[in-house]
């Protein structure tokens, strides 16, 4: 417990947010898991994971190693696992394929497990396990036939597996058809995802069911031709099975032998080694006796070779409750138990029968079957005897006392060897006893297990009844059984048609208490047979699980699948009729798949339980228990629990299947509805089609009419056309004729025209002639008139000639008189004229020549002009070029000049700087001297005044003049406007000259602000020569002197007094300057010095910043 708590703590720590803690805890867990081999820790982990979904736990679980991941041998777990696997498989067809081999391996192991039963596995569990393995077999075969078959082939080709194959797998294989995929498909094709894509889960389930031949598994769908037949038959058969449940009981008894009680008992009382032998002996005989039954022994199917043993081992006391039941059944029915139907052989026999029926026509009954029948009849008798004996030995029927079982051990040896039936009977008794024991065992501590037995309770009731019924029906069965073979036995056949329908009715009537549940059962059976439901209620449902809750979709079948339902009803009724005719021998035993075995086990268990509950008085129970040890064995409880668990699993699995079926049914229903709708649609379409066809007919008729009309019109048109053609031809002929005529006429016309033209020509000629003649005539007449006028003129002229002759004679006379005077003059005149003419001619020539030359000259000059212009332009260009060049050079020169200017400026600056320093030095010295000279100053003042007046005269001395210049300067500074105007428009040079001391100071002012401090001290040390300023600028000084001399002279003349006063005021400064500068000049300037007055100091203040600065400092 402490450890448990510790684990819990650790688990909670596992989810702590601290990573280190988590790692530590994980490590602790792993260590524990490695050291501890028990499953406890693992289980705790799993539980914890399921509770919390803790990720680290999952991690630990997934990394589990060797000792823990071993196979659990607990059947409950295994079965659960297998069922889950089977349930899952259709859901994950695609993703599961990687583990296909694992699935196969599981199958292989489990199947071998079923046979070998490792460990102490209870038989009851094995039933479940076997059932689940069987289901797994179906699922695997249904889903992956090729792979599975190849696996089977490889796996069971090994010798060590051969036995398993024979015992377990082979029987399973007889419940399946050949899978069509085995023919059409391949291994790879099976795993093709496309194959699974189209199928939903329930489709897969149904696919698997289709393969099965097991009536409880198989699907009853249309479309599977073979399976359809089978399935059509099977439901019926199963119905029969349900109708005559004695087989059920029988089988379930057979399987019930494997209940944990028996085995546990067996293990307690007998050595396990003995059991199989004793148990297997009857079964082997069962196998050997009926030739075909070998395959269909239920025990074989279930993998259980130990059916009957338990009775011998069961304590006699416990048989009491059962014996009562047995007795009642026996008593109620007379001796029906002896009938072959009750015996186990018929079960396999009938099974084989079934298959014969399926595979062969019913008429061809095989000899072995006859034999079987015979055999089966025989043991029944034996058994009957035995039972009678039993009864006779012990108690009268109806009483509670059990007789047979107490003697059973004694009988066992003989009977077991002699007859199976007896053995079986005994088994039954023993099992029932066992069961009763169980139930009593349960009944006592009933209260807490109410939930457990509740489903069984009712079941047990019905089951018990069924058992009794079975006896009855078996009685009928036996009587009817040989009927097809021996017609002589036919007599009983006809009188039991109703029984065939409702086989339970009869026993019901004879049943003892027959509770309400039983009636329900019967009715449900009846309905299940008579209603056209294709889905027969499987026995297990009848057994109690399903009867209470009929499938919710049952009623849908009639609606959804009217066709199928109808079909099925017809078939059903046919078969029923056939059966009614006497084929009741078929009510024998249907196939016993593990499912059924399991179902029956459940039923039986419930049956017994209920009986115990109902009929056992409480004291006896208590007695039993006291007798047995006082307390219910815990082992049994556990087993029961496990069983319950298994059953629950089974239930869940079946529920799953049912759900899948429900799904499928719903889908099918939808399809059917759709199909119906489509059919109606088709019908409507057909109607429409008919209508349209009618229309088409009508249209055809009208078309024909129209065609006739059309052809008529065509003919008319043709005739018209031919007529018109002939007309055209005629007209053409006419036209040609006309054409010829016109041609002829035209030629004639042409001829006429020619003639006319000729005539016209002639006419013209004639006309010409006429004209010509007329002209001639007129000419002639004109000539005539001319000649006439000429004649007249001639006459006139003749007369004139006469006159003129006379005049001439007269003039001749006159001429002769005057001729001698005029000739000389005329000659001279002529000569003069000639000369003049010549002269003029020569002149003209000259003139023209001159003109020519001048014109040439003009041209020449013009060309010259053009040339000159051009030259001029070139010259201009060149000039420009040269100008540019010069400008370039000039610019360079200018820049040079600028640079020079800058250089000089810099130099000036430097010099002025130096001056400034000198001045400072001078000032300092002057201040010192001033005190010493103060006394002398007064005396010297007078001389100075005189000197100041004669100052202008003494201008020849350079230095003196310089000083004079200086002396004048203060005045212009005081009256700046006048000096500015006088000083050449205030040019820099003049101003500099006029105030030689000031400029440096003034200029230095702005500059000195930066560096005044540096030069302040340095200047003091340098000897200052203020007076030398004019010297250094001698050239400038000269000019200034000239300028100022004039000025000073004039001014001196004008107001000597003012000058003197001014000079006086400047004296100290001058004196200072001169005194410092040169002692020689002091003599000249000597008279001037005057005592320092505040004015001059103030002036100095303004003038020399540095000085004042010094003074202040």
């Amino acid at each position: 417990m402490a450890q448990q708590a510790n684990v819990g703590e650790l688990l909670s720590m596992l989810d702590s947010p601290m990573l280190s803690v988590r790692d530590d805890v994980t490590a602790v867990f792993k260590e524990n898991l490695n050291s501890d081999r028990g499953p406890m820790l693992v289980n705790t982990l799993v539980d914890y994971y399921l509770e919390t979904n803790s990720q680290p736990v999952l991690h630990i679980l997934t990394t589990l190693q060797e000792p823990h991941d071993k196979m659990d041998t607990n059947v409950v777990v295994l079965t659960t696992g297998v069922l889950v696997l089977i349930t899952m498989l259709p859901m994950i067809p695609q993703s599961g394929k990687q583990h296909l081999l694992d699935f196969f391996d599981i199958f292989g192991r489990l199947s071998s497990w079923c046979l070998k039963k490792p460990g102490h596995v209870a038989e009851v569990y094995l039933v479940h396990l076997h059932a689940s393995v069987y289901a797994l077999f179906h699922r695997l075969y249904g889903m992956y036939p090729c792979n599975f078959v190849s696996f089977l082939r490889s796996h069971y080709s090994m010798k060590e597996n051969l036995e398993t194959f024979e015992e377990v797998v082979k029987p399973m294989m007889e419940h399946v058809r050949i899978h069509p995929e085995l023919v059409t498909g391949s291994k790879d094709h099976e795993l093709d995802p496309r194959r699974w894509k189209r199928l939903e889960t329930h489709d897969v389930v149904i696919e698997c069911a289709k393969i099965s031949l097991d009536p409880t598994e198989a699907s009853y769908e249309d479309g599977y031709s073979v399976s359809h037949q089978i399935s059509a038959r099977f439901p019926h058969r199963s119905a029969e099975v349900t109708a005559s449940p004695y087989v059920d009981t029988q089988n379930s008894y057979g399987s019930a032998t494997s209940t944990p009680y028996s085995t546990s008992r067996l293990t307690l009382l007998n050595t396990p080694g003995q059991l199989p032998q004793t148990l297997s002996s009857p079964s082997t005989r069962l196998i050997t006796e009926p030739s075909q039954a070998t395959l269909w022994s239920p025990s074989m199917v279930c993998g259980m070779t130990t059916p009957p043993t338990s009775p011998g081992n069961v304590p006699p006391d416990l048989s009491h409750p059962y014996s009562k039941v047995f007795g009642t059944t026996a008593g109620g029915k007379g001796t029906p138990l002896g009938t072959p139907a009750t015996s186990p052989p018929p079960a396999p026999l009938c099974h084989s029968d079934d298959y014969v029926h399926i595979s062969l026509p019913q008429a061809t009954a095989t000899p072995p079957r006859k034999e079987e029948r015979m055999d089966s009849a025989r043991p029944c008798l034996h058994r009957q005897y035995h039972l009678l004996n039993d009864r006779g030995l012990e108690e009268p029927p109806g009483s509670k006392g059990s007789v047979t079982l107490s003697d059973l051990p004694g009988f066992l040896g003989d009977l077991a060897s002699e007859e199976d039936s007896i053995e079986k009977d005994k088994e039954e008794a023993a099992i029932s006893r066992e069961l009763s024991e169980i139930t009593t065992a349960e009944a006592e501590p009933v209260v807490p297990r109410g939930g457990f037995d509740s489903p069984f309770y009712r079941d047990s009731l019905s089951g018990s009844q069924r058992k009794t019924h079975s006896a009855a029906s078996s009685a009928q069965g036996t009587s009817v059984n040989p009927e097809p073979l021996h017609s002589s036995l036919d007599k009983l056949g006809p009188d039991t048609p109703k029984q065939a329908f409702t086989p339970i009715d009869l026993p019901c009537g004879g049943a003892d208490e027959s509770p309400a549940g039983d009636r329900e059962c019967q009715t449900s059976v009846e309905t299940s047979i008579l209603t056209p439901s294709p889905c027969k209620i499987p026995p297990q449902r009848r057994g109690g699980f399903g009867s209470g809750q009929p499938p919710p979709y049952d009623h849908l079948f009639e609606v959804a699948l009217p066709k199928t339902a109808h079909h099925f009803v017809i078939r059903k009724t046919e078969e029923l009729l056939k059966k009614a005719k006497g084929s009741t021998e078929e009510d024998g035993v249907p196939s016993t798949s593990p499912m059924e075995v399991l179902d029956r086990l459940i039923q039986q268990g419930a049956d017994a339980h209920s009986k115990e509950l109902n009929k056992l008085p409480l004291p006896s129970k208590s007695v039993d228990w006291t007798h047995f040890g006082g307390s219910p064995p815990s082992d049994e409880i556990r087993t029961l629990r496990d069983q319950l668990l298994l059953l629950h699993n089974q239930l869940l699995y079946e529920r799953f299947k049912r759900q899948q079926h429900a799904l499928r049914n719903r889908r099918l229903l939808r399809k059917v509805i759709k199909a119906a709708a489509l059919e109606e649609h088709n019908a409507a379409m057909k109607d429409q089609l008919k209508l349209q066809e009618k229309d088409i007919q009508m249209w055809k008729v009208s078309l024909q009419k129209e065609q006739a009309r059309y052809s008529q019109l065509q003919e008319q048109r043709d005739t018209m056309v031919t007529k018109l053609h002939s007309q055209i031809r005629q007209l053409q002929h006419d036209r040609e004729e006309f054409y010829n005529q016109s041609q002829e006429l035209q030629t004639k016309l042409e001829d006429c025209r020619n003639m006319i033209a000729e005539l016209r020509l002639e006419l013209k000629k004639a006309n010409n002639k006429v004209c010509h003649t007329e002209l001639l005539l007129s000419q002639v007449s004109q000539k005539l008139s001319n000649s006439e006028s000429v004649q007249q003129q001639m006459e006139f002229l003749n007369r004139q000639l006469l006159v003129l002759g006379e005049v001439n004679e007269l003039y001749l006379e006159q001429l002769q008189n005057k001729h001698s005077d005029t000739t000389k003059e005329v000659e001279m005149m002529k000569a003069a004229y000639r000369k003049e003419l010549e002269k003029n001619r020569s002149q003209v020539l000259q003139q023209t020549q001159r003109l020519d030359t001048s014109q040439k000259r003009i041209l020449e000059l013009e060309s010259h002009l053009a040339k000159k212009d051009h030259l001029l332009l070139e010259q201009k260009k060149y000039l420009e070029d040269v100008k540019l060049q010069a400008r370039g050079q000039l610019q360079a020169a200018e820049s040079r000049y600028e640079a020079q200017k800058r250089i000089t400026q810099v130099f000036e600056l430097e010099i002025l700087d130096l001056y400034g320093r000198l001045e400072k030095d001078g000032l300092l010295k002057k201040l010192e001297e001033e005190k010493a000279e103060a006394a002398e100053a007064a005396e010297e003042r007078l001389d100075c005044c005189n000197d100041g007046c004669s100052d202008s005269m003494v201008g020849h001395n350079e230095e003196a003049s310089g000083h004079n210049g200086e002396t004048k300067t203060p005045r212009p500074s005081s009256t700046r406007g006048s000096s500015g105007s006088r000083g050449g428009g205030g040019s820099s040079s003049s101003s500099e000259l006029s105030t030689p001391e000031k400029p440096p100071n003034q200029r230095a002012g702005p500059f000195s602000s930066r560096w005044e401090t540096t030069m302040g001290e340095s200047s003091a040390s340098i000897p200052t020569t203020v007076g030398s300023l004019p010297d250094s600028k001698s050239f400038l000084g000269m000019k200034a002197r000239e300028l100022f001399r004039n000025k000073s002279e004039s001014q001196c003349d004008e107001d000597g007094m003012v000058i003197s006063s001014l000079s006086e005021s400047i004296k100290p400064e001058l004196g200072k300057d001169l005194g410092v500068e040169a002692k020689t000049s002091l003599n000249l300037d000597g008279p001037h010095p005057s005592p320092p007055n505040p004015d001059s100091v103030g002036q100095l203040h303004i003038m020399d910043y540095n000085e004042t600065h010094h003074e202040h400092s």
Partner: protein
Amino acid sequence: MTEDSQRNFRSVYYEKVGFRGVEEKKSLEILLKDDRLDIEKLCTFSQRFPLPSMYRALVWKVLLGILPPHHESHAKVMTYRKEQYSDVLHALKVIRFVSDTTPQVEVYLRMYQLESGKLPRSSSFPLEPEDEAFLAIAKAMEEMVEDSVDCYWIIRCFVNQLNTKYRDSLPQLPKAFEQYLNLEDSRLLTHLKMCSAVSKLPYDLWFKRCFAGCLPESSLQRVWDKVVSGSCKTLVFVAVEILLTFKIKVMALNSAEKITKFLENIPQDSSDAIVSKAIDLWHKHCGTPVHSS
């Protein structure tokens, strides 16, 4: 026509095929052969093509007005220039402003200051920012031009050009820079804006010093070709291209100071490519200069 006949007839196709600079030297020689050099043509040539290094000094001198366009007066003008140089230098030596130990660059600065009348009273006064820019440019120029007279004159005229011709346009360059950077890579600009580094970029280094000290001289002289020939906008594209080239690094830097510091000391190895790309970019945005005549 004569010019064309002297040129290789294939020259037209060289550029089409992608060869550049094959015929440039020859065409420049042709240009320089003219008496009375055509300044405008030289400007256009210098803007379009990189100058051959052997003619660079000559072209610069002509473009900057140190030499007149007439070959005849070159010698004379040059003597003037030399004399001016020596005069100024002498003056400086006389006033003991410079000595033989004074670094050449400072000598240039003092000479320039003297010529422009800005010479301080003492050489120990702290330098003005413009003097610093002058020193940077002079230092770069000293590497490019061997002759000290030429060097001084080119520096002088170059700085003068910056101070006169580009006086109005230089302050506009940061704006133009932003604009073109936005066109080329707006993301980078937004990054710069986010870091508020736009106003703190080394504009002085870029535009006042014309990248002197930022790019190695071999690349720088190609930029200055353009500046000398009259386009100060080239500087903007060089700056843009520098940012584009070092985009990744700049994007990685988040503070304005870091960006500025990085841009002031960019790696020198890719400068040639930067300049080539910048000139391409300049041609792309402002068009290839074509001689107007």
